[in-house]
């Protein structure tokens, strides 16, 4: 069959090239910290499974991102369904103990939490475009390939998502101001 003769891309090389992007993107797509281990594992099991099918039609980066998107979206849906059943915070992160690093870690955590809180207010299909464009620096063409939508759709979603993000930021500031 056609797969047998192709040289296989080395899985570990793929992992090491893309892991950072995968973890960050999965989080930004809405996978909580408490589940990121499992989700990253799932994503790379799929990547590993399908590596032989990778045909170079797209770049490895957009191909992997497509897988991240599919797996993360499923988790996002599942989490929301669970949250609808009982209202508990899905992401009860433990705070670091009284290390020297504690305040730095807290800062990091707050930066991440703020961003996640804001993108959470953007409708999913726009949010995903926003994450890839703004957080990951993807071009519109790359986003189109990864999410399997056309480039004009990418542009319009991104424009709307930016408005949404800024509006959410405005609301957040207003809320803090009144406190």
């Amino acid at each position, binding site marked *: 069959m056609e797969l047998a003769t192709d040289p296989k891309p080395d899985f570990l090389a793929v992992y090491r090239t893309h892991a*950072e992007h995968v973890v960050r993107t999965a989080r930004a797509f809405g996978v909580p910290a408490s589940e990121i281990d499992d989700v990253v594992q799932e994503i790379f099991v799929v990547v590993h*499974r399908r590596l032989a*099918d990778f045909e170079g039609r797209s770049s490895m980066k957009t191909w992997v991102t497509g897988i991240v998107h599919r797996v993360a979206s499923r988790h996002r849906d599942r989490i929301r369904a669970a949250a609808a059943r009982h209202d508990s915070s899905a992401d009860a992160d433990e705070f670091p103990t009284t290390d020297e690093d504690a305040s730095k870690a807290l800062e990091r955590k707050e*930066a991440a939490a*703020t*961003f*996640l809180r804001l993108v959470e207010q953007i409708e999913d299909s726009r949010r995903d475009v926003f994450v890839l464009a703004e957080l990951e620096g993807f071009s519109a063409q790359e986003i189109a390939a990864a999410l399997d939508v056309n480039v004009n759709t990418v542009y319009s979603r991104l424009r709307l998502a930016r408005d949404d993000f800024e509006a959410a930021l405005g609301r957040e500031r207003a809320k803090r101001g009144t406190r």
Partner: protein
Amino acid sequence: MTDELREDATAIVRAARDALTPTSAELTAHEARVLAAIRGIPGDAGAPTHAESLVTSATNTALAKKVWLALAFMAVGGGGYLFGASGRTDGRRESVPRTSSTVTRAEPDVQRVPAEATEAVAPAQDSVSAPAAQNMPARGGVSFARSSSSRSASTFAVAPPQPIEAPQVAAAESRLAQEVALVRLARSSLQSGAPNVALLHLDAHVRDFSDGVLAHESTLLRVRALCALGRADEARTLAPNDAEGAAVLSQACTTP
């Protein structure tokens, strides 16, 4: 892109990018988990080099035996699978210490396993590595047990033989491993020219893993199988409406 984010919004994105970027320790832990998961799954067409270099795993569980038996009977994929099988079924073969990072980095103690699987193998599990697996986002049981905390990834190379079967057994029994095994059987059947058998496996996959992580791959395989059986219309109806679906259709439904 025409518009741009306002400066304050950009600052938040930038800070978030730093904050959401995993540390190298976290990446190494993820890598160990990922490799352990893959190792827990019998030799895979996706990365034959790993399947071979990671032959040290001991998947001597009932499930793994079933999977191997099925594989042996089907004689799929030629020597690769059978080689893997013979290397594994004897269970306790240990790794020779070697400098290959692929093996030593993959110490699977940090792997997450489903509760039921953990219970099943609890007696065999190392009392040190078990809690480590739960709580430590570090490199896992091996470095933990040897209380060496600050080696860089590249020097984390030579490890003595370790009795590491428990987590792998757990991995083999995980739902993910079962799903992967099933889809792999389907793919192997297809590759060895038995699309009708592949369809049976895919039916089982749909039945047991309707929300499975490999649902998309399963559908693509089904499209291939239908094409191979000359059922092009069904294949076209079923093919995902995306680039991959189109690629599979054009490839599998036109070539004889």
